[in-house]
């Protein structure tokens, strides 16, 4: 379909030429007001969670959900990090944080390298069946996880990585391969043909052209893919739940368990603090690299 990254680049580089500011008309004020109200509503849930996480349980029981804490306390945060119970083990979300990292890093490196080389070979080199293959990938990117869940469980068991963080990472690599490949492929197709032709005449070597010409040109799309993977893998629940047995569960799974564990009374502040800690890494990346995140999610959605 369209070339999302190129389209967005254009948008970012050259915003539509706008006429000089004129007197505000009522319709524009109304539009602006509407946007502001909508934005406030969007922020309410996050606000509630943040203030709740700094309250003590006694204060929460007062029910003043929207009020700022009278006494700011970090108790919930420390207990969420190190003591909150998920089922029978009480190690807080820190256990999950470490596991998520161990899942994230190998899956990032492997999936991006894998998808990038695949996209490069399929789009810039003459392979007769490349287009058929890419169409197959396009279809695969829509396949629901449930339909290949059992085969994947068996495969990881055979490879004896089931229940390990590396196993979870491998599954992420496999599941993200179609979509990431298509994103890279779309980007590589936007490289001028003549440039590749020049490289073919100059060098003709598959890996030389990849490392010396194509890779250095791929900075932006690498960041886009990276962000897509970081948020996708970090926020994943189902794969982590299915393949990460006790001890290899990612942060989201631990968080869900903490929220479900009511032994010793539910401490909502702890739940909220744990939720915020789980949400923080992708949220921080999003705030720092918002433009690339937008490209990533739209590219991840529209492809082919």
């Amino acid at each position: 379909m369209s070339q999302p990254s190129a389209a967005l680049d254009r948008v970012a580089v050259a915003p539509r030429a706008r006429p000089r500011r004129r007197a505000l008309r009522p319709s524009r004020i109304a539009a602006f007001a509407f946007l502001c109200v909508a934005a406030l509503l969007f922020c309410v849930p996050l606000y509630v969670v943040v203030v709740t996480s700094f309250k003590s349980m006694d204060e929460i029981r007062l029910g003043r959900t929207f009020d700022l804490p009278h006494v700011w306390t970090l108790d919930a945060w420390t207990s969420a990090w190190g003591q909150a119970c998920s089922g029978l083990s009480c190690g807080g979300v820190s256990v999950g944080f470490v596991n998520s990292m161990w899942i994230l890093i190998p899956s990032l490196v492997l999936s991006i390298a894998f998808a990038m080389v695949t996209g490069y070979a399929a789009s810039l080199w003459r392979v007769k069946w490349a287009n058929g293959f890419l169409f197959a990938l396009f279809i695969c990117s829509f396949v629901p996880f449930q339909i290949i869940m059992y085969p994947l469980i068996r495969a990881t068991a055979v490879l004896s990585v089931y229940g390990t963080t590396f196993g979870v990472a491998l599954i992420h690599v496999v599941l993200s391969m179609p979509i990431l490949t298509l994103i890279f492929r779309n980007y590589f197709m936007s490289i001028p043909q003549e440039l590749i032709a020049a490289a073919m005449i100059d060098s003709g070597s598959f890996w030389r052209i990849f490392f010396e010409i194509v890779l250095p040109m791929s900075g932006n799309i690498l960041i886009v893919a990276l962000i897509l993977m970081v948020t996708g893998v970090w926020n994943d629940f189902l794969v982590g739940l299915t393949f990460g047995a006790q001890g290899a569960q990612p942060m989201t799974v631990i968080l869900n368990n903490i929220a479900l564990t009511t032994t010793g009374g539910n401490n909502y502040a702890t739940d909220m603090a744990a939720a915020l800690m789980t949400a923080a890494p992708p949220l921080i990346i999003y705030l720092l690299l918002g433009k690339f995140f937008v490209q990533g999610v739209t590219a991840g959605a529209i492809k082919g």
Partner: protein
Amino acid sequence: MPAVQFRNIVKHYGNLAVIENLDLDIGDGEFVVLLGPSGCGKTTLLNLLAGLIEVDGGAISIDGRDVTDLDPKDRGLAMVFQSYALYPTKTVRGNLAFGLSARNISRDESERRIDWAARLLRIDHLLDRKPAQLSGGQRQRVAIGRALVKQVGVCLYDEPLSNLDAKLRTEMRMEIKKLHDQLRNTVVYVTHDQVEAMTMATRIAVMDKGVIQQFSSPAEIYDEPENLFVADFVGSPSMNMLDCEIGDANGSITAVDSVDKLVFDLDGYSWRRPVEPGRQVKVGFRAEHFQAGGDASSAGKHVRFERPVEYFEKHGPDAIAFLSLPQKAIAVRVDSRIADSYRSGQPLLTALPLEKINVFDASSGRRL
């Protein structure tokens, strides 16, 4: 031995035959221009030679070596692209060196060649810049430099000047020509610009619909076009064409304008093929071969006619007068003084030297 040889080349895109059974021999050290309208197959032919696309039939050889099944890098050629195709992340030096390092050329030798090419093209002060920091003309030089450092026998140019403005284009045209005179390598140059073709080529291959219409020197292409397509495509304005019929007046062959009954005496014409009276032909002649106004009355073996001027197209030093003939308007190049002194509708006396006339068969379009 020809440097580049095409034998029975066939290329299809799907069901569409782009090139069908094409032969072309390019001599060593020649500067051959492939000239034709867009879609004529000239770029396809160049890409086939470079190995960027594969032939569906036939063979290509370079220096007597069959390269049909070789990769582009193994064919011993270099190429300059329309968009220059410089590697954006590499410096100028890196751009020049990339092709050399892939060929296992020693560092010393590679530096020597880069130095040589950079000085030849006057880009030695730009070697550490990135392509984005260069002007169009500078990028063009770097692109040529990238081809030169390989020091291969055959250099391909794919419309290299079409992204430059008019002034730079003239300048680079001269420079490419000078480089060729100096280095004497074989050049195959694709363009749709006939000025480039006329000024640079040792021979021009005019292409249309995947067929080489004529392959000869620029002068021959211009003065003795092989067929109607070449006559029409080369030259600006295009060659004037009048529908005529071959006649036989007192033993001498003539061509008679079918509407106007204008008579062209063809006794002095060097016929390529025999003609017989009654044959439908097209008589072609160029605008600049006319003499007009006062000059028209003096000359010898001419055909003269006086027709009203439809309008003048003034070019500065000279002008084109469009004379309205009953069949169609014909273009006549005249002195700008004439353009200034005549009004539209006023008849203008013109004389056309008969030895400049071209005769084509009306049905086959071939030169007679």
